[in-house]
């Protein structure tokens, strides 16, 4: 393992990728496990990184794949009846306990966050990358291995879905 590669990756991306993983899993321990897994995959194939995409989107693409592997495994363990685990249409549910920072959020943020967690996997990923990580449409498309138009459509649907969910919450 090349120490200098790790140190640089850590400085440049640990904060963002960890933030992505903890919002996705809502569990600090799991986010730490998945972060470790991301490093393993990145460091193992770093020498072969071709630079077709930016390093940042490459890392997020790996973080996405690591998370989906985790959620799929969880779905298998929980014996979901669907034959194929389709992360784009499935809620990526991993609610154990909320990280403490999220408990302290104001009500509006809490409502939006709860709504986000009942969105489908594709919507959740797009929101996390576009709004939490400030990735551009092109970067998000690269990280999710989608076309840019799919990113735009999914983002649009996600915002609509969030809007409906928070309004429902208000009515309740």
């Amino acid at each position: 393992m090349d120490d200098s590669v790790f140190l640089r990756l850590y400085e440049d991306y640990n904060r963002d990728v960890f933030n992505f993983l903890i919002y996705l899993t809502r569990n600090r321990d799991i986010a730490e496990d998945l972060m470790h897994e991301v490093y393993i995959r990145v460091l193992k194939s770093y020498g072969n990184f071709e630079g077709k995409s930016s390093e940042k989107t490459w890392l997020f693409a790996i973080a996405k794949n690591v998370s989906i592997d985790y959620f799929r495994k969880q779905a298998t363990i929980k014996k979901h009846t669907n034959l194929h685990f389709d992360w784009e249409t499935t809620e990526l549910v991993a609610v154990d306990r909320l990280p403490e920072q999220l408990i302290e959020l104001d009500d509006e943020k809490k409502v939006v966050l709860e709504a986000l967690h009942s969105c489908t996997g594709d919507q959740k990923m797009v929101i996390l990358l576009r709004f939490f990580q400030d990735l551009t449409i092109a970067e998000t498309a690269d990280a999710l291995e989608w076309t840019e138009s799919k990113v735009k459509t999914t983002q649009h649907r996600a915002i609509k879905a969030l809007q409906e969910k928070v309004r429902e919450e208000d009515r309740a």
Partner: protein
Amino acid sequence: MSKEKWDEEKIDKTLREMPTIEDRRSKEEVFQRLKNDSRLTAGQPKKRVSKGKWKPTIVAVAAVLLLTILVPTFLNHTEQTAMDKTTSQEATESVKMEDHSTIGNENAANEESAESADEIMFSRVTDVHYAAYADSTQIPFRIGLATDQATIIPVTFLLPQEQVVRDLQTSEPDTVALYNAYAKKIDEETLGFTAYHPYNAEVSSENKRVVMKFPANHSYDLASATLEMLNLSIQATFYGMDEVEFLQEDGSPIEFDQVGEVAEPITLTGAAKHQAYYRFTQSNAEQLLSSNFGQSYETVEEALEAMKETPNDIYSSVVPSNIDFTVTEEQGIVHVKFTQQLDLDRLQLEDAMQLIEGILLTVASFDKQVQFSHIVQENWMNFDFTQPVKKPIGANPKYLIIE
């Protein structure tokens, strides 16, 4: 909060204002954990850790499915597959366990405990394998297990050698001895399969011949599909034996409803089944690799080509539609060259592993080894793609928990 308040702008703004949740671990802590992970230490083997037991699945009654699924008849199939007799002994002997140990790594033992803790933690995320490899401390017990879709899936239980020696007083038991000792101990339903074993028959062996004596009340000839399942399961179970003879309890020839008297012993194909491997998905969503109802191919090129297409609703291709490869064979090594550089880390781990191990199992069923080319990673999940990859000894490894 009023209804109007939640316009798109407000949602947008709220999302962007979410706080960043920090990783509380220090850089050193994160780094240390990586240094303790054997996957980053070149050449060191990754110990497989037993997966948690699958919770019992709902076992559907397969009878209707059995009658409706189109399968070749029992006899036709037997003729089709009775082509190659390579014993598993030969296969096992030809597969030498790769020695991964790093010379001069004196700290290996000290690192062991830290590694194993980390690996157990990660086994749920990373321990994804669809093929088993030779290991001098384990004895493979292969068996065909039944699913609720009336299919037979080959499974390889890796039994600790010392356990087998304790139970059977030999480190080289034949497959019938393994079957009689362990088939009854498999909790098939917990593993996501339907209860099928042990056979309702007395199973014994005479040299390389398996003898199965069925009581009058057996129901294997209820339909052509149940007979086909019996055939597929014995083919996947009795490795290393040449043939199997079906008899009545008293030793006289048996008559099956669907096919009449079974006069000739059935040839067992052993390790060289000449099959293509596909993805099978259990009702509990677990994915496994299997041949397409035992279909066999003349050449390894044909089998690998067949893998690219999904054959039916039960089995699907492990080769993603945007990935293609060419196949050539030189001096017994099958060269699989991807037409475009394949970055395995861009695939989801399970899909990538199914692709690689599906190819390995297909080629191993021709008793050959694979050399991959055009893969971005030279080393990946303990595979060394710079040279021919170790040949698997069985499909779908599982650990049999024996009390």
